[in-house]
């Protein structure tokens, strides 16, 4: 790694990220992300999906910086509700509930929030540096990839996202197949043939991405929540927060845990499908093991807050690496980022770094700035976030619906897109009822067209001999890993781990 280029890269990045407009939008992104993330039942994926359309009118760099801010904000919002109310906004903050709410019960909720924020900030800083150092090296390596390697890499990504994800593997595989099929809708780039367009001109460029994700995540969630709605809603009563300053003892307990959590998150965040969720779970169980009898887990041990929070933030950070260097999104949030890039006319991949250094480094540096903002803005605003929780669902869901609809409409001013949203909302609702995850589906929609392209190119090079995937060492290696992952589903240990990991 040569440091001169690292520093010049970071220099470019700070130049972009410190531009007043970009700072302003990073700020707005973090703020709005937290605001929406705090709302019950809205995790980062839904938050980004709903707010995605509004960033399309911004310049590419600013738009992506805003989205990244929304992502961190939403994640932070999720931990706030876990700690104060036992309401994890999404799966990755489930473990935070155990000790975070434990601390709240002891009257140390404020300290738990501070520990989560500082731990996340530390992890975010390390994660940003990690990407800055590793990104260029990986990009250089990936430029040597040919079509077969790319194809295998995407297969690996999809399979890994299935194996590492929550719930039934076979259902997730079906979701991947459905997503691939949806991804093929539109004009075939090689022959100009229209496929699965049902005569709709609006579908010639493929299924519009924004209606797809808003329907699957935003509208479907509303339908599921409404189905369970009853006449009288329970009022949410957050517990007292207490001081925002951890005691010295708490800090001493949390600091090393945050460091270990960061390390775990950095590595697991790189895995497709895993990202934040796996990171926080593994970090928590490692912490339990390291502490042994010293720990007081489940009753408000600061280490049980610091480790998973640091881990999920580090994981969130490093999951950008496969996207920026390989052009392959590793989880649903990154699939949304890919969609946002494509809407802006940017093709993510190894060439971004050389062709658009402004974008690459600007985004990396703004990640760090985003983390800093969470710390500086959000912690003092905790009281405001708690008030948000008192909003009744009868008021909340019409707001979510309107923001989604106006956002979708403003992308293309298309009535068709609005109707499509209703359709995908229904699909998303059915999938939830049938215990299927929408995440692998969205991942496959994004990867589908690229996979077809690389597959066809590989077959062309090899003159139709599928042996090309085995005869090239890199591609063979990726194939072996993929098969091993598939086989591991059937191994009893892994199965036990999965069911344990996703029990809560």
């Amino acid at each position: 790694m040569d440091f001169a280029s690292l520093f010049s890269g970071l220099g470019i990045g700070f130049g972009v990220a410190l531009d007043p407009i970009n700072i302003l939008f990073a700020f707005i992104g973090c703020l709005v992300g937290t605001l929406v993330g705090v709302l019950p039942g809205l995790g980062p994926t839904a938050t980004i999906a709903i707010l995605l359309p509004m960033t399309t009118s911004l310049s590419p760099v600013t738009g992506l910086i805003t989205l990244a801010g929304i992502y961190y904000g939403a994640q932070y919002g999720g931990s706030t509700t876990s700690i104060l109310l036992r309401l994890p906004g999404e799966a990755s903050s489930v473990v935070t509930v155990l000790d975070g709410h434990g601390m709240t019960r002891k009257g140390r909720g404020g300290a738990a929030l501070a520990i989560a924020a500082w731990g996340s900030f530390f992890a975010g800083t390390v994660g940003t540096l990690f990407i800055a150092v590793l990104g260029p090296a990986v990009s250089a390596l990936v430029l040597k990839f040919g079509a077969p390697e790319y194809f295998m890499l995407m297969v690996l990504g999809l399979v890994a996202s299935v194996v590492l994800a929550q719930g039934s593997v076979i259902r997730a595989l079906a979701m991947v197949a459905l997503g691939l099929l949806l991804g093929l809708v539109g004009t075939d780039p090689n022959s100009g043939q229209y496929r699965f367009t049902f005569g709709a001109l609006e579908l010639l460029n493929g299924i519009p991405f924004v209606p797809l994700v808003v329907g699957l995540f935003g509208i479907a969630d509303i339908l599921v929540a409404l189905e369970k709605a009853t006449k009288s809603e329970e009022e949410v009563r957050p517990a007292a927060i207490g001081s925002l300053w951890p005691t010295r003892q708490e800090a001493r307990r949390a600091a090393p845990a945050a460091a270990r959590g960061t390390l775990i998150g950095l590595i697991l965040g790189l895995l497709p499908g895993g990202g934040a969720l796996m990171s926080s779970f593994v970090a928590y169980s490692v912490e339990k093991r390291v502490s042994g009898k010293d720990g007081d887990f489940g009753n408000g041990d600061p280490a049980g807050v610091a480790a998973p929070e640091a881990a999920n933030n580090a994981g969130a950070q490093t999951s950008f690496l496969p996207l920026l260097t390989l052009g392959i999104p590793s989880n649903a949030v990154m699939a949304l980022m890919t969609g946002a890039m494509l809407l802006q006319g940017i093709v993510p991949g190894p060439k971004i770094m050389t062709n658009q250094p402004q974008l690459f480094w600007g985004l990396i540096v703004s990640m760090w700035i985003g983390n800093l903002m969470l710390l500086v803005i959000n912690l003092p605003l905790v009281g405001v976030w708690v008030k948000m929780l008192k909003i009744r669902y009868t008021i909340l869901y019409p707001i979510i619906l309107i923001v989604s609809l106006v956002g979708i409409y403003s992308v293309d001013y298309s009535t068709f897109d609005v109707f499509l949203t209703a359709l995908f909302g229904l699909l998303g609702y059915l999938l939830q009822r049938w215990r299927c995850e929408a995440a692998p589906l969205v991942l496959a929609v994004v990867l589908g067209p690229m996979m077809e392209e690389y597959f066809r190119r590989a077959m062309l090079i090899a003159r139709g001999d599928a042996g090309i995937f085995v005869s090239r060492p890199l591609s063979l290696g990726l194939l072996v890993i993929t098969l091993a992952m598939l086989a591991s589903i059937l191994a009893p240990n892994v199965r036990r781990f999965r069911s344990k990991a996703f029990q809560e």
Partner: protein
Amino acid sequence: MQHDTTYRPLGAACIALGLLAIWIASDYPYGSVTAMGPGFVPTAVAALLALLGALILLDGGKDLSRQPEGEEPASAPADSLGRLRAMLSIGVAIMLFGLAVKPLGLGLTVFLTVIVASLGHPGTRLLPTLLLAAALAVASCLIFVVLLSQSIPMLPRID
């Protein structure tokens, strides 16, 4: 424990969709392995989907594992009236928005959409809903049209 039967509609839907897609894709030139036509990959993927659908049915909700112990119970006894109410109000609200926004303008459309959508929740009360609808109508005009300068008409079109 209630047995989870969601695999049945899911498996059937996967098979149906897969077969439908194969049938549609049969119109597209298949090509050869060396020079694939636009029909090759769609057919393969659709076949995979149908195959997985069949697997889901055969597997019978066990999800490839022998241990259904302590798995989450199937969703709570469904209140089909509540479900219908939610589906209808949200569905109609979205359609209404799509159809009305051009002729009626953003303000009025948002107002009406909020009211229709609010019918989906049994706890909705009249006055708060009207206030919310009015507030959102004004806010969405201000934010989207004035602030973000989207070219959506705010008021009804008078021809």
